[in-house]
């Protein structure tokens, strides 16, 4: 059976602000005439003043200064018969051509793959569905490649899972296209080795240091995926008290796989995370990209004991400078305090400030949370 009516143009694409004259022609087999018809746009009736009869069975409508499409599937321009029935419809795609995508950033997980993300150029909307294609090619080798796996790290991202070459830079760019045109981003050049990231350090263990109430010992392993490659890893630790959302960061961990946190609150639960940066992989001069933080590990410091006068540093832990310093502290306290109950914390703070000033010991954090 023939359609009851035909609209022209059918599904046009238009620039914002343009004008359009559309026509609805009733089929020859229908008893309807031009005066039996009316138009709606997105469900709202268009004023008869915009109509023109262009023939006995053809009604035209003029639309001026079109705004961007109300929905990306197109504005619904519909020709109705007098009783409201739908005779035909046309989807209007009104918008702007895309702007060139910007801010392309990429990272490679263990040199095995490459994920890139970008931002659409348009601050506002184009009103039309925009397709993005990420392309890449090895510098000095001709062939363009197209990335296939999109939306892996947000809506504007793509993942290249394999067949990546090292030591030769890649040229990467993003093409944005919609019904009104195409826009190509600037080309970025990168070497896979300069954007390497890795998994978070595994086997993070946090434990008490004997009975020391202000310290916790953190230990972890280096990420196994990169163990065969020459690199000096850098690590970072962050920790927070259980009921706080404020993380403290320990930056100068270097490339050891253990660290002692000090200056902590006694009898408190702490959450600790570690992350890794595969710095200088294969002699790359650039820093790599920090891994995600490891899953938080929790541990608690021992509860403080009242009566500092009787407190000797307990526990047979390692013979560190810390032990010596604690001995010094309690000696100092004995000299300056008469019964420690009220003065304990204040004195401890004062002593720590003095300690910080006198020597910066590695693996220590000065401030109390």
């Amino acid at each position: 059976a023939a359609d009851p009516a035909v609209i022209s143009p059918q599904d046009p694409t238009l620039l914002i602000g343009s004008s359009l004259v559309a026509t609805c022609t009733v089929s020859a087999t229908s008893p309807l005439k031009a005066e039996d018809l009316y138009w709606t746009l997105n469900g709202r009736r268009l004023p008869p003043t915009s109509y023109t009869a262009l023939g006995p069975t053809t009604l035209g409508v003029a639309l001026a200064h079109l705004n961007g499409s109300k929905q990306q599937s197109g504005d619904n321009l519909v020709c109705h018969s007098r009783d409201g029935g739908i005779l035909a419809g046309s989807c209007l795609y009104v918008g702007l051509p895309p702007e060139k995508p910007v801010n392309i950033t990429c990272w490679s997980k263990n040199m095995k793959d490459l994920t890139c993300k970008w931002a659409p150029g348009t601050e506002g909307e184009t009103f039309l569905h925009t397709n993005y294609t990420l392309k890449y090619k090895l510098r000095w080798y001709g062939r363009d490649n197209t990335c296939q796996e999109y939306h892996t790290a947000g809506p504007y991202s793509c993942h290249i899972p394999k067949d990546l070459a090292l030591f030769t830079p890649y040229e990467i760019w993003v093409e944005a296209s919609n019904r009104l045109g195409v826009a190509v981003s600037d080309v970025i050049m990168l070497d896979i080795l300069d954007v390497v990231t890795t998994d978070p350090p595994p086997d993070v263990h946090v434990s008490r240091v004997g009975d020391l109430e202000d310290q916790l010992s953190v230990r972890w392993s280096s990420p196994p995926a990169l163990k065969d490659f020459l690199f000096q890893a850098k690590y970072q630790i962050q920790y927070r008290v259980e009921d706080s959302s404020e993380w403290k960061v320990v930056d100068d961990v270097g490339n050891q796989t253990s660290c002692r946190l000090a200056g902590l609150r006694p009898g408190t639960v702490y959450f600790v995370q570690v992350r890794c940066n595969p710095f200088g992989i294969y002699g790359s001069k650039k820093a790599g990209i920090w891994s995600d933080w490891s899953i938080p590990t929790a541990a608690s410091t021992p509860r403080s004991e009242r009566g500092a006068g009787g407190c000797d540093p307990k526990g047979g832990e390692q013979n560190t400078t810390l032990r010596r310093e604690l001995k010094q502290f309690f000696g100092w306290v004995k000299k300056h305090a008469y019964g420690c109950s009220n003065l304990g914390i204040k004195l401890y703070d004062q002593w720590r400030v003095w300690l910080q000033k006198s020597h910066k010991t590695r693996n220590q954090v000065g401030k109390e949370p």
Partner: protein
Amino acid sequence: GDSWGIFTFLCAALCNLPALPALNCTEELGTSQSIQKTYDLTRYLEHQLRTLAGTYLNYLGPPFNEPDFNPPRLARAERVPSATVDLDLWRGLTDNARLAANYRAYSRLLCYLRALDGQEGTAELRHRLGHFCSSLQGLVLSIAGVMSSLGYPLPAGPAGPTTPPGTPVAPNDFLKKMDDFWLLKELQTWLWRSAKDFNRLKKKVPPAVVTLRLEARGF
């Protein structure tokens, strides 16, 4: 979510079905339990569809998302099997016919849903659509399971992911929107109907009947 769990389990269970009697599965589902599960699935899908339809119709834009919208049903749209049926006819359906009608309908509906434009639409819409298709696939498998456990053969025909041959693609975007509208409407009607179909089947297949069948087959 839940639908993935059901789907994966059913896939595993049903992989063994064609060759072996259903009750040889390590998970011994009574037929009445399968029917109950299928019923539950239709209710779950009905709930999911409400959200999906809302999102999809908003994407199509007014007047499609207006509550009283009632476009003409063109010949083209007849490709979707209709749930609407004469009451006496429906009452008189044999269990086999009842199940087969459901199985055929949802297989076709699943194909059409999958063919809905994958590239267009917002990320949210694509996500909801994907989730719904998984759940719907679970329903198809669930119905197949019930049919097998009752000894009925599965209806032949397109149950795969490809669009059935001979389906005319809508000639313009507006007509495609109307097709999509009717697809969602028909899905809704089928889910309402299926709940009643499976309720009816539940009453007709108590656990005792299943045991009897087992003995009759000499297992």
